[in-house]
Structures are given as structure tokens and as C-alpha cells.
């Protein structure tokens, strides 16, 4: 790639329209060549598999005949899959709300303390985000383990009876959410903290002179200034949480009685473990319209606000 550019070197200094035009032409060629690997990755590993997934989802189990929307029909009729839809939505919405709220609170608390101490606290609080989730979930699994549960041990000190964390469906659902919130809240915290720091101090001074209470400062200064970051972070987290696989796989593996499966873990079970590739592809594809609609509205809102500011 570099050779093509080197050859033009002496000619750049030559004045005149013709060489300039040639230069411009060459520039777009070079630029295109530079983006070619990116186009190959996006085209070959994202766009093509996405189209291929749609094709796969319309085949029968042995991938020999076209059955149209048959896989989707079968899935929608099965109780397990309806439960998967419910569980995915419940899990993603609850976890994201909790993560956003806790992250927002922690970011505010961090912002309040003297600046020289913030680094240390921030460093400690971001640790859950740094550990690969599959591995930290192993630790949580051990903490939830029925016989030796160290969380129950602490609860027992406060005279709270032991909780069957992973044994009962609802407790298992809550456990998955707890682990996800523990893992994801620091991410929200760090995003909101960055956003808080970008709000100009003059705005708060102006608000203070106007006699605004701390609630009014939050409501009329902080939140409007942070709206874009909040929506992007929520969008990103909603997608990642909705499509989560590792926490469910390690913690419950879908159990008890397939009641904690989300789209990803169910797609894995049906598609890879049970060998029904087309139906697994169909399960994954169910995520797509939901995610696309959320992304569309969030990004439209962000764009509109950006244009208003500009």
C-alpha cells in the first residue's frame, strides 16, 4: 500500500491543475485501499453472516429444505421460548435500570469528594468491569453455592434465613441480575463521571446565584447536559445485557428447568449443543428487530439533540 504513495512524492511540488487533479484522484484511491481491510471485516464477518443467518433460519433441521418461517412459528408456539422472551426482557430491563441508577449515584458521589481522592476510589470501583465476566461469575457461583454460600453466611449473622440462590427460579433470576449489575454498574459510573466533568462549572455557579436547590441543579443543569451520554450508555448497555451469554452460562446454565435462559444461552443450547443450527439461528435473530428498534429511537434522539446544539 505504501509504495503507491511513495511514487507520487516528487510530483506534488509541481504546480498546475492537472497534477492536482491526479493527486485528488490518487488520494481517494489510497483512502479506499486503506479502508479495504475494514470493509472486509465488516462485510465478511458481520454483514455476510447476518444475511447467512436469515437464510439458515428458513431451513429445516438438516439444512436440506426451505421451510420459510417454520422455525419461528415452532419457537413462538413453545412455552420454553415464550419464557425465554420474557426472561430476556425482564433481565435486560431490570439490570439496565439498576446499573444506570447505581452508576449515576456513584458517579455523583465520586464527583462530590475532593479531586485528589477520586482516582483511588475510581480505580477500586472499576475492578468488576476489568475482570473477564466469565471468570468473575465463577467467583459469584462459588459465593452462591448452596452448602458453603458465603453470602448466606453473612445473611445468617444478621439473622436472615439462607437464600436458595440458584435453586429456586426467581432467586436464580435475581442472582443473574445481581451479578450483571455488579459487573456493569462501574461502566455506567465511569461514563457518567466523564459526563459530569464535562458540564461547565459556570452553569452551576449561575444556578447557585439564581438560588437553585440541589435537586433543581440536578434536574435543570446536570441531566439536560448529560442526556446524550445517558442515552448512548443505556442503549449500549441494553444491547449488551439483552445479548448476554457468559453470566447465564456460568451461573445457571439456563437452569433450574430452563427458566433462566435468555436469547443467547437458549440459541447456544438449541443451535450448538442440540445441533439444530437453523432453529438456533432463528432464536438469535429474534433479538435483531428488538435491538434495531431501540437503537433507531435512541440514535435519532441523540442526533436531533446534536443538531439542536450545533
Amino acid at each position, binding site marked *: 500500500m505504501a509504495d503507491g504513495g511513495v511514487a507520487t512524492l516528487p510530483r*506534488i*511540488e509541481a504546480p498546475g491543475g492537472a497534477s492536482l487533479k491526479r493527486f485528488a484522484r490518487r*488520494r481517494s484511491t489510497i*483512502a479506499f485501499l486503506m*479502508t479495504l481491510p*475494514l470493509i472486509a471485516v465488516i462485510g465478511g*464477518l458481520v454483514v455476510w453472516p*447476518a444475511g*447467512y*443467518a436469515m437464510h439458515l433460519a428458513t431451513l429445516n433441521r438438516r439444512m436440506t429444505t426451505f421451510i420459510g418461517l417454520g422455525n419461528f412459528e415452532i419457537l413462538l408456539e413453545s412455552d420454553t421460548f415464550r419464557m425465554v422472551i420474557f426472561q430476556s426482557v425482564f433481565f435486560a430491563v431490570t439490570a439496565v435500570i439498576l446499573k444506570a441508577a447505581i452508576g449515576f449515584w*456513584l458517579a*455523583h*458521589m*465520586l464527583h462530590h*469528594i475532593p479531586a485528589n481522592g477520586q482516582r483511588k*476510589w475510581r480505580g*477500586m*470501583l*472499576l*475492578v*468488576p468491569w*476489568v*475482570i*473477564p*465476566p*466469565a*471468570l468473575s461469575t*465463577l*467467583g*459469584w457461583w*462459588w459465593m452462591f453455592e448452596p452448602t*458453603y454460600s458465603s453470602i448466606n453466611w453473612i445473611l445468617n449473622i444478621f439473622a436472615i434465613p439462607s437464600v436458595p440462590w440458584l435453586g429456586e427460579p426467581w432467586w436464580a433470576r435475581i442472582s443473574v441480575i445481581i451479578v450483571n449489575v*455488579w459487573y456493569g454498574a462501574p461502566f455506567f459510573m*465511569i461514563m457518567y463521571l*466523564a459526563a459530569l466533568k464535562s458540564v461547565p462549572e459556570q452553569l452551576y455557579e449561575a444556578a447557585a*446565584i*439564581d*438560588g*437553585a436547590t*440541589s435537586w433543581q441543579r440536578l434536574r*435543570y443543569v446536570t441531566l439536560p447536559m448529560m442526556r*446524550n451520554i445517558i442515552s*448512548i450508555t443505556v*442503549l*449500549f448497555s441494553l444491547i449488551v445485557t*439483552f*445479548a448476554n*451469554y*457468559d453470566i447465564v*452460562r456460568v451461573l445457571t446454565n439456563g437452569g433450574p428447568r430452563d427458566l433462566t435462559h435468555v436469547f*443467547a444461552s437458549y*440459541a*447456544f443450547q438449541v443451535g*450448538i449443543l442440540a445441533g439444530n*443450527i437453523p432453529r*438456533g439461528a432463528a432464536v*438469535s*435473530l429474534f*433479538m435483531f428487530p428488538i435491538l434495531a428498534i431501540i*437503537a433507531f429511537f435512541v440514535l435519532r434522539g441523540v442526533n436531533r439533540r446534536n443538531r439542536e446544539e450545533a
Partner: protein
Amino acid sequence: MSATAANATPAQGIYHKAGSLRRERRWALVTAYISLIIAAIIMLAPPFYMLLTSLKTSAEVADASGSPWWVHSPTLENYAALLGNRMFIDFFLNSAKVTIAVVALTMVISVLAAFALGRMRFWGSQFLATGVFLTYLVPDTLLFIPLYQIVGGLGLLDSAWGLVLVYPTLTVPFCTWIMIGYFASIPKELDEAALIDGANWMQMLWKIFIPVALPGIIAATIFAFTVSWAAFVYPTAFITSPAEMPMTIGVVSQLIRGDTFAWGQLMAGALLAALPPVVIYAFLMDYYIAGLTAGATKG
């Protein structure tokens, strides 16, 4: 709306208000520290407990009489057993091999593309930049089944090289996106000066953009590293033989055997597997955080 509030406050009220402000501020500080302490305990408890367990003998783990939150006779035997285990060392080498290859590939692809997209406007570059951002939003669990078929078709299933092929879907979009942002923040005068001096585009990228945007490049490299080290869905789907497994899936699937779990060893394995990203974070925290937040603040 706040103007009326200001008018309503009488002149003496300001002094009264100043005193209450100070008290309010002190309470805010106390609340802040209490919240942070509680949060830090919760955030650090699981890794701390993993560390405790990894230092216990199997007998002490099985002993349910004492406090699980303390270790009475610490031992390094779990770590020694793992480091003497050929399979575990292979997990580490596989992870290192895949991660280094993916990071190198990602950085070349995304720096070149970001430079072209951010600096050399051409037909469709805006469209492509938007496409990069949208690809970043596609989760890996959406595409792992067709990719399983594609990787299988190439004969790369159950091979670490298959992972090198697919991991760029996790890293390239975000790295390109943040590099576009970093390159865009470099003043236009710099490249004009370089062009006048007769530099070509490659020289400009290599001699000006990469050195100036070095913090961004470090941040993107750290991101690519942590993501490929932590990747879980693809290796779980593609790799079945222990000899080809990277760390994450190796620890999760191979150290759990039978009904009696060697919890101490499992936790030691998980901690060792988590060590590289944690060490990088400990030393390069500011770059790590810059990479994390760059995507959103520029979005």
C-alpha cells in the same frame, strides 16, 4: 423559572443560606464517603473471596464450621498445581497467541481505516463511518451461529486460528471508531504543513498522526487486548478440544470436573486467567478509562 426564586430570597437570607450551604456540603461529603465505602466493599468482595478461596486447602474449603471469609492456614498449593499443569499452561499460551494476533491485526486495520475515514474524505466515507458505529452495536451472540457455520466451512473449527479470524468483529469497529475521534482532534494545519513539506499520506500517518494520537492508540490497544482476552461466546462455540482452548473457556469448562469441585484450584485458575487485564488496568488505568469513555463522549 429560577429567576423568580432568586428575587424571592431576601438580602439577609443570603448569609443564612451560606451557613446552611456549608452544612449541606459537609453532609454531602459524608454521604459520598459512606456510599463509596459500601460500594467498594461490594465491588471488591467477590475478587477478594476468590483470592481467599484460592489460598485454602481442599480440607479447609470443605470445612463448613468456621467463617468462610477467612483463611486459617494459607497455602499456595493450588497455584503450584495449576502452574505445573501442562493443560493450564496451554490455555495461557493459546490466549496469548490469539490475543497478540488479534491486537496486531485490529490495530493495523483500524488505524489505517480511521485515518482514511477521518482525514481523507472520499465517496462513501461518511456512510462507512456510520456503518462502523452500527457494527459496534451488533452483539457477538447475534452472529455466532452463522459464524460457526462459516468457520466450520473453512475447516477452522476447534482451532485457535478460527478465533483469530472472528475476534476482529469484537474489536475492530470500536477501535476504528475511537481512532476516528482521536485523529479528528488533530489540527488540520499539521497535515497541511506536512503536505507542503512534500510528505505523502503514508508518511503523514506514520510520522505525524500515530505519534500525536499515541494516547488514543494505547487506549485502543488496551481495549482490543481486554476484549480478546475476555471473549467467551466464540471460544465456547468453536473450541471443543482442551489443547486449543483459551483461558476463559478453559478454566470454566476444564477445571470443573465431576461432582466434587476443587474450588480452591478453580478460583486460583480464574484469578490467574484474569491477571493480564487486571495488571494492564493497574498500570495504565488512565488510558483504559480514556478508551472506555472516548466512544460515548464523541458519539
